[in-house]
């Protein structure tokens, strides 16, 4: 994948959008509150941005509960924010939270609240690609904690056995809620050790969007060529607690160490250094993104709640009343 200067500025804009969006979520949560409990990815932006950037627009993406960037890159901001507020213009008219949203048009696979249950689902998308003879790649994001579920083994195995076009992206932020992953995963060092499966795997610097893009692009190419799945372990970190109700208990020094490798800063400095952008451009970009985010929140706050009928979208192919009875 060739990264022109223009493309790299887009990458930066996506990083910044993700950052500014989540900062706004945090602010909104801490002032008036937001109905959807925030599980912020601040600090992890390069993983989602880089991987999504390396893919085609119609490649399937199966986000984890924390993967925010791909959603922001593919879905209009207003819709995402409305999703958090549970208002009418959200991705499911308020039926579900925004971080489980699915959209076939945007090639986002809806997920469940069961961490890791989406891995085999993403493999199923790969199966569809094979059955339909198209070359859509399926990329699934999941945390380090999810690697200790059985789904991790079975999904890797099946994708590898069938050489399906799937890219597995571990967002390894070192923690599964309040437990350090090292305490619950029987590996010496890296989680890819788990995968004795016959598939390529590598560890990637998840703070560096360019590294993420390169690794994902290579994996996607392999998938598209019919050479099967790849496992990528992206080392990253979240600056915030698991969810906003949970107190911060991690080591201050650990947090600071990671902040010194901030993915937005790394990318900004690189663009500056390479003379691709200047301070003026950066300020403009930031201002415009902030304005967009602000407008989206404004929109969502004014968006009405859904009508009660929104709830009754349970079956696609039959009309059913609220008591489970078929309407003739």
């Amino acid at each position, binding site marked *: 994948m060739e990264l022109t200067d223009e493309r790299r500025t887009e990458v930066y804009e996506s990083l910044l959008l993700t950052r500014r969006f989540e900062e706004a979520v945090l602010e909104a949560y801490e002032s008036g509150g937001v109905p959807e409990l925030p599980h912020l990815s601040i600090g992890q932006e390069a993983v989602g941005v880089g991987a999504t950037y390396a893919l085609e627009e119609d490649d*399937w993406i*199966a986000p984890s509960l924390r993967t925010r960037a791909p959603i922001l890159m593919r879905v209009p901001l207003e819709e995402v924010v409305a999703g958090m507020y549970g208002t009418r213009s*959200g*991705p*499911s*008219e308020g*039926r*579900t939270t925004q971080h*489980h*949203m*699915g*959209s*076939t*048009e945007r090639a986002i*696979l*809806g997920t*469940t*609240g*069961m961490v890791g*249950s*989406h*891995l*085999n*689902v*993403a*493999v*199923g*998308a*790969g*199966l*569809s*690609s*094979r*059955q*339909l003879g198209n070359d*859509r790649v*399926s990329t699934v994001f999941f945390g380090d904690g999810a690697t200790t579920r*059985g*789904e991790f083994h*079975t*999904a890797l*195995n*099946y994708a590898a*056995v069938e050489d399906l076009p799937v890219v597995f992206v571990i967002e390894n932020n070192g923690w599964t809620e309040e437990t350090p992953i090292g305490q619950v995963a029987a590996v010496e060092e890296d989680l890819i050790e788990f995968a004795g499966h016959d598939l390529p795997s590598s560890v990637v610097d998840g703070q560096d969007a360019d590294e993420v893009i390169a690794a994902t692009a290579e994996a996607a190419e392999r998938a598209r060529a019919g050479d099967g799945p790849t496992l990528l372990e992206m080392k990253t970190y979240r600056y915030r607690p698991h969810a906003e109700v949970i107190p911060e208990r991690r080591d201050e020094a650990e947090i600071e160490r990671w902040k010194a490798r901030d993915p937005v800063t790394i990318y900004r400095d690189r663009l500056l250094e390479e003379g691709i952008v200047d301070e003026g451009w950066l300020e403009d970009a930031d201002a415009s993104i902030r304005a967009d985010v602000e407008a989206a929140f404004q929109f969502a706050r004014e968006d009405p709640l859904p009508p009660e009928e929104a709830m009754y*979208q*349970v*079956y*696609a*192919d*039959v009309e*059913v009343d609220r008591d*489970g*009875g*078929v309407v*003739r």
Partner: protein
Amino acid sequence: MSELTVRESINQALAEELERDERVFLYGEDVADYGGLYQVTAGLQERFGEERVFDTPLSETTLGGTAVGAALTGTRPVVEIMFGDFLAIVADHLTNYAAKMHFNYGDGTSVPLVVRTNYGAGDQFGLHHSQSPIAWFQNVPGIKLVAPSTPHDYKGLLKAAIRDDDPVIFLENKLRYETEGEVPNGGYTVPLCRSDRKREGEDVTVVAIGGMVDVALAAADRLATEGIDVEVIDPRTVVPLDKEPIFDSVRKTHRLVVVHEAATFGGFGGEIAAEVAEEALFHLDAPIERVGAPFTPVPFAENLEEAYLPDEDDVIAAVRNTLGE
């Protein structure tokens, strides 16, 4: 019309739908070259090729998960879970994923998958290969549960299930794969979510599910010789339920017996009874009778399994109870 077994009628349905729609594919443990443990998919790989009919690892969560993913992305997977008991292993993917994604999306996306599996006791396969798992999913909005009774219905309902846009658990009674019956030639379907009156009668309504429809009909025949006229309703799709024909029948007969193979306590029969107790209470001339298994796992020993499984005599006794005999 031809005389087909249930096994053959399912096989035909699969073949016709594989033929009709390129998006349909079939997979599971040993379903391909071997043709499935019960030989239901025999010959299909040979006919449709390894890309349309294939084996999988011994991993039910992969079966459940990939079927959801495939169904969400434009294909129509038909997956075989070797025994209904194993649905417990895919309960997460069925309950939390398949059933909820249409609700979860906002763009009409649905989950057109079919999970074929079998259920039922009577062959001494023991407590883990004989359960009747309907109740595990009866309170899960978004799932469709289909339990046919005749070769005709097996074929037509399976074809309809494959064409249906919702996730369907298709329950095959493993004791009745050899049951024969008339099946029309050609591509008919039987609509989901429509119950069927399998026998008309005036005196007592018997609602029977899946394999118990045969039992109810046999009981009705025996009772007919004594002048007791039993109506047998086969819901076919149990979730969601086509309730009105049941209410109508009870309003006519004033008596209700519900028959299924699972334990009575906590079983789907309770739902049917409760519905009638709400909608048609004052039409009832006798307490509702439920016929089902005792609240135990399925026992292995021949005599115990026989005692466990509801049979004609149980249905007859229940009908007589409703008649105050």
